[in-house]
């Protein structure tokens, strides 16, 4: 069953058709990778679905309901969450605060004025649990602005995860992270979201990561969907290999390599 379906979704910036009549479907429970060269329209597509941008035309159907005109706030409430390509955290607040805010928000408690945030044990226990699962429990009381880049990338995902979304967009969860750190981050992230039954769409440039962690791959090129299939199908797709110069022509991905799509 489709959890998310866009119908002829379009968005232009001036003459540039960033997303051009795209029909993009995500099935419930899958881990899908959205790939394509820079400027292919991946992030714009995510921005449209998450509500950061309004489409020029087309529809967004989420869990059977039309959310095209809903605000980002309403979309979060129905279960669409995202992380950001450039880390977006509450830098002066502690890591635990960063997670607790998602929990407070999810439970509709952020409007509480006359109660101490610190006294809500259930929230902090859960925040600590989330941090522990992401391997960040030692940084619990440390301001989010002072932890390492790799940890920040994880925390960024954890903040979105703590909203307990149905659909989670991860916009380049390993960008700017050293090759050696990428796989551990992805291991943590995918195991957590799988165990939580969360449907995930990963935008990623690193082909090793894409082929290793995704169940389905959607390739975008110049605002349109070029190909859609399993990792094996995509690897054998000639259109994809000719478009994304520099990626794998055939065969198995090189473990630990640095293959980048079209960049």
């Amino acid at each position: 069953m489709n959890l998310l379906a866009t119908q002829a979704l379009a968005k232009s910036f001036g003459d540039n058709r960033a997303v051009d009549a795209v029909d993009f479907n995500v099935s419930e429970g899958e881990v899908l990778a959205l790939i394509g060269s820079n400027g292919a329209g991946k992030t714009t597509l995510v921005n449209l679905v998450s509500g950061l941008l309004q489409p020029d035309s087309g529809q967004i159907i989420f869990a059977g309901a039309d959310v095209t005109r809903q605000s980002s706030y309403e979309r979060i409430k129905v279960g669409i969450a995202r992380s950001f390509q450039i880390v977006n955290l509450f830098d002066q607040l502690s890591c635990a605060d960063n997670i607790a805010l998602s929990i407070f928000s999810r439970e509709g408690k952020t409007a509480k004025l006359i109660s101490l945030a610190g006294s809500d044990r259930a929230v902090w226990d859960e925040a600590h649990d989330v941090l522990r699962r992401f391997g960040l429990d030692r940084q619990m009381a440390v301001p989010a602005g002072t932890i390492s880049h790799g940890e920040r990338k994880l925390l960024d995902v954890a903040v979105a995860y703590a909203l307990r979304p149905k659909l989670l967009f991860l916009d380049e969860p390993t960008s700017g992270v050293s090759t050696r750190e990428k796989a551990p981050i992805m291991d943590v992230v995918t195991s957590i979201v799988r165990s939580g039954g969360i449907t995930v769409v990963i935008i990623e440039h690193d082909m090793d990561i894409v082929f290793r962690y995704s169940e389905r791959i959607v390739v975008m090129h110049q605002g349109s969907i070029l190909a859609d299939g399993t990792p094996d199908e995509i690897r054998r797709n000639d259109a994809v290999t000719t478009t994304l110069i520099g990626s794998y022509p055939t065969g198995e991905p090189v473990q630990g390599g640095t293959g980048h799509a079209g960049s």
Partner: protein
Amino acid sequence: MSMGAVTASSKVSTTVRVGAWIVPAAALLLAAPFVIDPFQTLTLTYGLIAAIGALGFNLLLGYTGLLSFGHSAFFGGGAYTVAFLVKYLKIASMELFLAGSVLASALLSVLFGYVCVRYTRIFFGILTLALSQVLWSLAFKFFWVTGGTDGLRVPTPTLLGAAPTDDKMDFLVHRYYFYVLAVFAVCVLLMWVIVHSPFGKALQAIRDNETRAEFIGIRIRRYRLIAFVISGIFTGVAGALWAPLNGLASPDILVWTFSGEIVFMTVLGGFRTFVGPIVGAVAFTYLKTYAVGFTVYWQLLLGTVLVALVLVLPTGIMGAVEQLASKWKRAS
């Protein structure tokens, strides 16, 4: 270590830390009128009142990341509300003054906030400045209502139904001082709870990263508006307490330079800490009182202090104290 133990121990240490501050501070404030001379007590009263206003102001600057240059509107609004209640309704009760100023500043800040919170940074600052100047020009021009530049006289009020004593100075430095101190204590407690509530955390999230705040489901514009209104009410209450002490509500407290003073005292104390605005407001009040007495060029003196402050203590008095404390802690 379990989560429970962590919270429990941090809670205990927080209580100890807060207590180590509050107990001596409260004792000093309670003893002050019996120890220091009346003039000093008067200055301290002005300082505590300014502190309430600065606390309100800092909910926006320190916790929500919005620099208002129009808080004179709420301070003046509170003071003029008192003056109007005296002049037109012949009211003399301080409790009614406070209730009236809460209502009036809430109304005013909803109106201003509705316009201003659509913007942030410099645009927000300029809008608050412009709107407050509108209020100032109204007070200035509608002299038959507001008394113009002469302002409106505010007599000493009744406190909890008790009529003021004949000796005005004695009344102000004793009964009125303790009244102000009580309101101040309530305001500090209330603000402390607000900034430590889930709502307060949400404001800090908006301050740090509004895009992300929006994407964890916080309605940023609405929350900014609520913060703006709370901030306006606190500053309005300060204005209401100020009016009987000063004996006069005049347009000087509506003009934008007065907003600048509120900004100054908050930065002086340190807007990154909770107590910073309180310390800054009291320090500023003393500084200004003595600067005015010392030289006619007091504004020059204050300006110099501000420049020195930004260069030497960029985090304000309390920021510097915290840095010293953490250095000392590491050394020991």
